[in-house]
């Protein structure tokens, strides 16, 4: 036992390698870098989902998915019932899709999502909340299950933008690829968002 304790007291483990990320910071030409993440003082981030259909479920699931990637609670989010106090507002663009068990097969192209960051003022501070819109696409006929499968991954993708992942991943296996082709964040998504949350931000969120 003394030998074991002696070895224990002297050894220091090496942190795991965290290589392999995609670019998350946008750039305003020529050289203004836009790096944003929610600071620890603004957690939990407040999400408002308009109470129509299963949108609150989709948003809560997406927020939990991202929060679950972090090892040191760098990001947490919560659903709020009042849009006035929200940091991120999520709405349906037009029609409300019926709730149904998700059917992943053939669900590509069944829906779309858009995230609009707020404008930035002269002090490099966002002026309001993020806005996310989710919409059902009607160019082809999809079952309710296919629409729901598309909505689940698109909600995660758009919430990812609101976390500060402003750029798309070039890798189809990442949830931040456009359009998202997978149902959950990949290891590269995780490494990227981890790196983002330990990178000094150049933009601050709007005052609460």
């Amino acid at each position: 036992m003394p030998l074991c304790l002696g070895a224990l007291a002297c050894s220091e483990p090496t942190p795991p390698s965290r290589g392999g990320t995609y670019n998350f910071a946008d750039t305003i030409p020529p050289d203004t870098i836009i790096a944003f993440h929610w600071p620890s003082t603004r957690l939990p981030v407040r999400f408002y989902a308009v109470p129509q259909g299963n949108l609150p479920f989709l948003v809560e699931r997406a927020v939990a998915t991202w929060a679950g990637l972090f090892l040191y609670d760098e990001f947490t989010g919560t659903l709020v019932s009042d849009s006035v106090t929200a940091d991120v507002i999520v709405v349906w663009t037009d029609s409300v899709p019926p709730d149904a068990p998700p059917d992943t097969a053939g669900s590509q192209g069944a829906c779309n999502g858009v995230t609009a960051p707020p404008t930035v003022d002269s002090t490099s501070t966002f002026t309001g909340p993020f806005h996310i819109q989710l919409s059902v696409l009607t160019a082809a006929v999809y079952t309710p299950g296919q629409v729901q499968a598309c909505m689940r991954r698109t909600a995660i993708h758009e919430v990812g933008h609101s976390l500060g992942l402003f750029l798309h991943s070039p890798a189809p296996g990442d949830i931040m690829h456009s359009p998202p082709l997978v149902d959950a964040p990949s290891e590269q998504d995780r490494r990227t968002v981890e790196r983002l949350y330990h990178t000094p931000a150049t933009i601050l969120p709007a005052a609460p």
Partner: protein
Amino acid sequence: MVRGAGIWLALLLSLIPSCRRLSAQASVQLSLGARYTSTMVHDSIVTPIDVRPTLAPSLAVTAGTASEHGWTAEGTIDVSWSTLERHDQGGPTVGLGSLTTLAVVIGVRRALAAGLAGRLAVGGLKYFPGENTGIFRDGSGGVFPLGSAAVTYVPPLAFARRRSLGIEARYDVHAFITPALRNRGFTSSQPVHRLALALRGTP
């Protein structure tokens, strides 16, 4: 405090009155103090990150046998409560929730000099996080083997001698890792050193 640790603490406190009825040859002592714990996780994401508990109150109950040839066998239950914190180098310190630790050790104590005694012990330690998130997302890692050493000093005062009232310094070390850390690529454990300074005496 989490329910599991609460149950252990209630059990620990309930033992005190019954232990006092033990044979006059045996002894029960209580110690109350503060504990420092070293870094539990050291990581590097852009900048170095350390995760460690805040300075914590520490409560321990020790039962010992009669002294034979200067040696005493002892068993100790030790509980402490703290807040786990993340320290980002050059950045903020962020609270990660409450953390309770429970350690049970058995060992031997020997008088070293007048009023001074030393103890060596081995046992196990378990963490009870307030929330199953972050490094405790996939569990707390079970019971960690623990090595412990302590030194107690009882000043040469009548009252102190009568109640065995003294100052105790307790050190222990264990190797910490959790399933979530393993899943993220940590391949070896982090040695965690704990040091408690406490007042110890017969209740």
